[in-house]
């Protein structure tokens, strides 16, 4: 059965998505610049200037535990240095933003190729690299987020909190899905080549 394909509609859709991705990419790149600067600056800020008064945590719950009740009483009457946690937090934030930028750049590369020649080996490789990125992120981003939270807990003497690393299964499934898509594109490239070499 012959199938019809509305190329104009497809091209318009790709154009619109390309513009949206470009805008988000620029915003993310600018945001990454800001967070990177923040991270670098925090390395040089004197520890004595980054202090935090714990009395603001009076009515704050975290993971169902009232923070003030869980904090080591010995440190409640003093200020604490937040420099280490700030660096950890900014580093984690930078990792997240970097990963977002990586996704956007990959999608942008894909969209650039998809309009004219969707099924080629390049697109298959972009998707494969993207899937690897997701697999790595499922471990690395979760790990550093947990390190940051744990460092904050340690900083305020929050002894009830345990280091609890868990794999980000959503990223793992995304990685698998995109890997399958990558193989489909590579197969499509093979079929495209067969088609192109048929007169």
């Amino acid at each position: 059965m012959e199938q019809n394909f509305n190329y104009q509609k497809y091209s318009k859709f790709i154009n619109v998505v390309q513009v949206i991705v470009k805008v988000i990419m620029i915003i993310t790149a600018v945001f990454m610049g800001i967070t990177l600067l923040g991270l670098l600056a925090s390395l040089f800020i004197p520890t004595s200037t980054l202090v935090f008064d714990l009395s603001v945590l009076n009515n704050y719950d975290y993971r169902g535990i009232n923070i003030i009740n869980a904090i080591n009483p010995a440190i409640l009457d003093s200020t604490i240095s937040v420099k280490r946690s700030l660096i950890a937090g900014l580093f984690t934030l930078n990792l997240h933003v970097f990963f977002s930028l990586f996704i956007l750049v990959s999608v942008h590369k894909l969209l650039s190729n998809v309009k004219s020649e969707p099924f080629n080996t390049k697109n298959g490789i972009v998707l494969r690299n993207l899937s690897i990125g997701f697999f790595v992120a499922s471990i690395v981003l979760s790990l550093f987020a947990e390190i940051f939270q744990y460092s904050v807990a340690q900083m305020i003497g929050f002894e009830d909190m345990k280091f609890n690393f868990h794999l980000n299964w959503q990223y793992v499934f995304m990685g698998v899905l995109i890997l399958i898509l990558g193989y489909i594109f590579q197969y499509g490239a093979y079929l495209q080549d067969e088609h192109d070499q048929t007169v």
Partner: protein
Amino acid sequence: MMPIITRLDRLLADHKMLLSELADKIDISLANLSNLKTGKVKAVRFSTIEKICQVLDCQPGDLLEYVEHEQDLN
């Protein structure tokens, strides 16, 4: 090298026709037809063979020939 070759050049010479003229008549690009003539294609559609045979008044067997190569025999 593909064991199936086309005798398009011979047929064109017999009909005193240029490749470009044939390409116009059967509505196939000159590049594709040239690839067919030089054996750089992997497959030919029946519809293409039909059009060529119509224009050149020949049989598919006149257009295509199987040539055994030593590599294939091995």
